[in-house]
């Protein structure tokens, strides 16, 4: 597995490398594992290692309707964000990769920019804008905020998919009698479907995890899971939070596995 490393590293080097990797993996994984284990405690406060296994904190989370409503809000907002980001990201990616104008490249950088900026700057800019539009605290406000920061991910995955195949396919479709829309529908869309779906999943994940914009743009009715989590963290550190965190972790991991499976399938076999 480490093939060539052996020759370069030598025995002492190999042991050192193994220790380093083990320490790294421990550092990366341990904190998350601790949370998961603690969520199963039967105590009133967080203990590690848990003395007895119990699901009482999961039950407690389930019983508090606020958690459920926040989760439902997050799923709704995440789905709407994914749809909006896919639409905007795909439109921008098509224009930038196929438009054939030099000034489109800076436009591409502008589309990607929100990914690089601290969310707090975007948040304090969007807050008064939403007030002006009468959207403050609404679902639309949060969805729009999340779409601003999630679109770059869709843009980059879709643009990569568009650059990944010969643009002559679309030219060919046009000469064969397909108009602009049908060229997109019957050629471009089948070619980028995988990238589109992966971009959508990423966008959902970004929204599902986003805190800062939700703090400024969401209202009591539209509060998201990260925001509620944040509020609870500021007050107390109960095992309920560990249970909720574990559920969120599991859900995110599931999304990631879905995206990865899609990516693999796309890489291995040509699209049907």
């Amino acid at each position, binding site marked *: *597995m*480490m*093939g060539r490393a052996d020759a*370069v590293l030598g025995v002492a080097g190999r042991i050192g*490398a193994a220790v380093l*990797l083990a320490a*790294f*993996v421990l*550092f*990366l994984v341990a*904190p*998350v594992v*601790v*949370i998961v284990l603690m969520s199963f405690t039967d105590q009133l406060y967080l203990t*590690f290692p848990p003395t007895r296994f119990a699901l009482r904190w999961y039950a407690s989370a389930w019983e508090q309707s606020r958690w459920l409503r926040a989760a439902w809000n997050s799923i709704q907002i995440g789905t709407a964000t994914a749809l909006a980001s896919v639409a*905007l990201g795909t*439109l*921008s990616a*098509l*224009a930038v990769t196929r*438009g*054939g*104008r030099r000034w489109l490249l800076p436009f591409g950088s*502008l*589309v990607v920019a929100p990914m*690089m*900026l*601290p*969310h*707090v*700057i975007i948040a*304090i*800019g969007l*807050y*008064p804008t939403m007030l002006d539009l009468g959207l403050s605290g609404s679902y639309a406000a949060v969805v*729009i*905020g999340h*779409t601003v920061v999630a*679109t770059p991910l869709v843009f980059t995955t879709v643009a990569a998919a568009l650059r990944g195949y010969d643009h002559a396919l*679309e*030219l060919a479709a046009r000469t064969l009698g397909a108009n*602009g829309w049908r060229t997109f529908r019957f050629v471009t869309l089948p070619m980028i479907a995988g990238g589109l779906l992966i971009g959508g999943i990423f966008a959902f*994940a970004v929204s599902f*995890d986003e*805190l*800062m914009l939700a*703090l400024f743009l969401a209202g009591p009715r539209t509060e998201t899971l*990260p925001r509620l*989590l*944040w509020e609870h*963290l500021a007050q107390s*550190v109960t095992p309920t*939070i*560990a249970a909720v*965190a574990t559920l969120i*972790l599991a859900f*995110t*991991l599931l999304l*990631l596995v879905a995206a*990865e499976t899609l990516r693999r399938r796309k890489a291995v076999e040509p699209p049907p």
Partner: protein
Amino acid sequence: MAGIGRAAKPWTLGRGYLLLLPLPCGFLAVFFVWPLLRVVLRSVLDPRPNFSNYAKVLGAGPYAHILLYTIEIAALVTAICLLLAYPVAALTARMRGGALQVMTGLIVASLWTSAVIRSYAWLILFQRYGVVNQALIALGLAGAPVRILQTTTAVAIGMVHVLLPFMLLPLIATMRRIDPTLLRAGRILGAAPVRLFLRVYLPLSLPGVNAGVALVFITSLGFFITPSLLGGGRTTMAAMIIEEEADTYLDWPLASAIATILLALTVVIYLAYGRLARVEVTRSLR
């Protein structure tokens, strides 16, 4: 005449695709460009059109100190990330098959794990009677529980944990492109390992280093969640003070001024990094 001839196939359906622009353009204009502009404008126009907000930020008081501290901690976190990630990435880049998949899987999964949750995990670990203190006492490294939370150490460890994937992924990507035959050729030509590393491996991995450093540093500057949870009350970073001034004290002009400085810092580094990366690419081609 400026010149004749162009790339082989200048065929496009350009005009049609340009019709797709108004929607994303409009969205970005209303919900990204205008809000940012608004922050910048408010910082100089509110309450009066002058630079009093900046005078307040840069003058006496906690703000200038917080900005400096933010840059310091971002630099510290970036340095630690680089030192930790470089050897790990170099080892990962050599892996094949299952081991490589497990490593990249771990890194990507970590990237996608909520920052709130990961910081919360460290919050628990670092508590007065938490796992870390128990371990320190058990190992005899401390006689009594040490205060870890609310220190720069705690903030730095938490941020490094969250940001490591941003350093690792570009490093691994660059290192995997380094041709192993180059290293073998160097060995055969008799270069000592240290020389080989300094003359061959390090220069070839520099584009990845640049990308990783820029990414981690820029992201660190805007960090909010981790420093709030792990440093809350004692160590304050720029994003925290912006949020606080806006949300708690409703001093939007001041928050806007700090945000504008943070924005300018981010953009400058981003532009400088772009140039740097291009230089690196052309140099590595030579």
